[in-house]
């Protein structure tokens, strides 16, 4: 681990431009790396206990509050888990609307991360605020795309934050066709903005550090998996059913993190845009594949900083795919469907891809239909272990050529590249008291 005679002490107490509190600690003595740690210091959230005693349709509304930016993902994933527990089969129309709903969240979240959180790193500014002075057109475009994403979510879910129309078995209220028509027009109008986003992403100098790891995502035989699929590993090239998710996450605890860590076939794995694009590249829309070629992205990429580029590729995919799905809805129309379910005992797991990676929810209900157990495993908690492994691999490689400040910045950029949502990642430790 030698890196000339450098002695650094890096202690970034709460990394900025991520959600939640995480610290990076690195110490090197005379070129030898002594310690590299990613500390997660957020308090537990107790959502899995909050849902105890609730009825099936109440659970998704409560757990959507786990996250303000992934509220759609938590809601839809929880609905899928509840439906698995109760044996409810949603209609094709409901599934199509949920796919639209899911992609709306990808557009708003990826745009927020790319423009407001990641790009400032690459342009050497503290935040988006200086960027607004130096590159006003870029920031105006970002605001326009973000608003489009927000309005898209509201068009399907009734409102942008913690939507209320989707539920177990369907939708309480159908989206209005004239609103969807307007959305379709705005998405088409956004194509030049998306092309400009590709052009900007092309100018970013991505740090050239690579580490092979296991990439885990959903995989669907028929399409680029965002809403549904089985759990795929790049190591085994095989899928396991979502119901076996605990064999995937294998959660464990470490002393310096309130977030549980995960590992599957090796000591850590990667979830998120890069994992999805690596695993399912062939199923991206042609426009997204063209964007990847334009951006010099070749799957598989082992560079975690390329997660930002993968988010751009997915934004392109979602915009074009949403246009196609909306045309399907507008051509066929929407019919009213009353969402129904029968409360009963059962257990079920559900999974969706959310912007930060694969998300698992699992609920158990008793005979009266009351929730008696809940489990939610969030993408960031699955990624934390992999981020620290990247740091441990990259620090010795960066040390010989970087000043302390440069090394600290590259570590912050690495953490931000994963687009973590740290406060969402903290869930309850299982404590068993033994008499």
């Amino acid at each position, binding site marked *: 681990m030698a890196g000339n005679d450098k002695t650094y002490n890096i202690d970034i107490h709460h990394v900025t431009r991520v959600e939640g509190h995480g610290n990076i600690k690195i110490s090197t003595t005379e070129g030898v790396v002594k310690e590299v740690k990613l500390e997660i210091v957020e308090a537990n959230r107790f959502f899995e206990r909050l849902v105890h005693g609730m009825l099936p349709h109440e659970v998704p509304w409560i757990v959507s509050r786990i996250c303000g930016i992934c509220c759609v993902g938590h809601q839809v994933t929880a609905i899928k888990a509840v439906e698995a527990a109760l044996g409810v089969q949603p209609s094709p129309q409901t599934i199509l609307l949920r796919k639209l709903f899911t992609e709306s969240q990808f557009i708003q979240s990826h745009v927020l991360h790319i423009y407001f959180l990641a790009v400032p790193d690459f342009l050497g500014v*503290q935040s988006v605020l200086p960027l607004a002075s130096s590159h*006003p057109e870029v920031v*105006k475009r970002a605001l326009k795309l973000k608003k489009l994403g927000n309005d898209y979510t509201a068009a399907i879910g009734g409102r942008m934050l913690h939507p209320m129309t989707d539920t177990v078995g369907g939708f309480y209220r159908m989206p209005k066709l004239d609103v969807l028509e307007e959305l379709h027009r705005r998405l088409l109008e956004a194509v030049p903005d998306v092309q400009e986003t590709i052009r900007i992403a092309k100018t970013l100098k991505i740090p050239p550090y690579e580490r092979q790891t296991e990439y885990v995502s959903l995989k669907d035989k028929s399409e680029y998996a965002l809403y549904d699929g089985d759990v795929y590993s790049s190591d085994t090239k095989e899928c396991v059913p979502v119901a076996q998710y605990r064999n995937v996450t294998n959660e464990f605890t470490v002393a310096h993190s309130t977030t549980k860590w995960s590992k599957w076939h090796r000591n850590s794995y990667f979830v998120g845009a890069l994992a999805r694009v690596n695993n399912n590249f062939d199923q991206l829309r042609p426009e997204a594949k063209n964007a990847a070629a334009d951006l010099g992205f070749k799957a598989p990429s082992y560079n975690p900083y390329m997660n930002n580029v993968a988010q751009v590729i997915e934004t392109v995919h979602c915009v074009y795919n949403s246009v196609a799905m909306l045309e399907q809805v507008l051509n066929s129309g929407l019919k009213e469907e009353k969402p129904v379910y029968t409360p009963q005992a059962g257990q079920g797991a559900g999974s969706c891809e959310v912007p930060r990676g694969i998300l698992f929810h699992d609920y158990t209900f008793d005979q009266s239909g009351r929730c008696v157990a809940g489990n939610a495993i969030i993408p960031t908690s699955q990624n934390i272990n992999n981020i620290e492994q990247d740091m441990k691999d990259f620090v010795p490689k960066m040390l010989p050529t970087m000043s302390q400040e440069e090394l600290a910045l590259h570590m912050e950029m690495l953490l931000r590249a994963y687009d973590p949502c740290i406060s969402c990642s903290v869930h309850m430790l299982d404590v068993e008291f033994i008499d």
Partner: protein
Amino acid sequence: MALNVVGLGSELSGDDAVGLVLVERLRGRVAGTPVACLVWSDVDALTAAHDLLALEGAVLLVDCADMGLEPGSYRLLVQSQVRLQVKHSAVSVHGIGVAEALELARRLGFAQPVHLFAVQPFQLEPGTPLSNELQARLPALDDALTAAVEGLEGGALPGEPKRRSG
């Protein structure tokens, strides 16, 4: 140029809805004047920054604010009296704060004055409507907001006769 009165807040967080309610009630009183009433319910700060850029004329934001005053009290803070603390670290996955949104809009060319009519809440309980206590104060707050608008517009509104509460 027109004065834009913008109500901010959430309808499902108790008195956080006061800005929305007051601006909705103001609408009838400013009909036929250059004053525009806008209700931005549950918008995130980035959307607010985006929408501010589309406005012409000065802006009066009407919102609930914790000012350490007696609940139900209000303050009109004209731009010259307000200094917003902008934090670069406030930009996160979950968006940005009001100060950062205003600063962002400023840097993108939004140059008009922004004033704030702020009301101290009684309660902000999630899932609840405006509190009974604040509902009882609405007529007085209507008068205060009308006076604020008239002050900023430089004259009495031509709408319904002014009604002043004790």
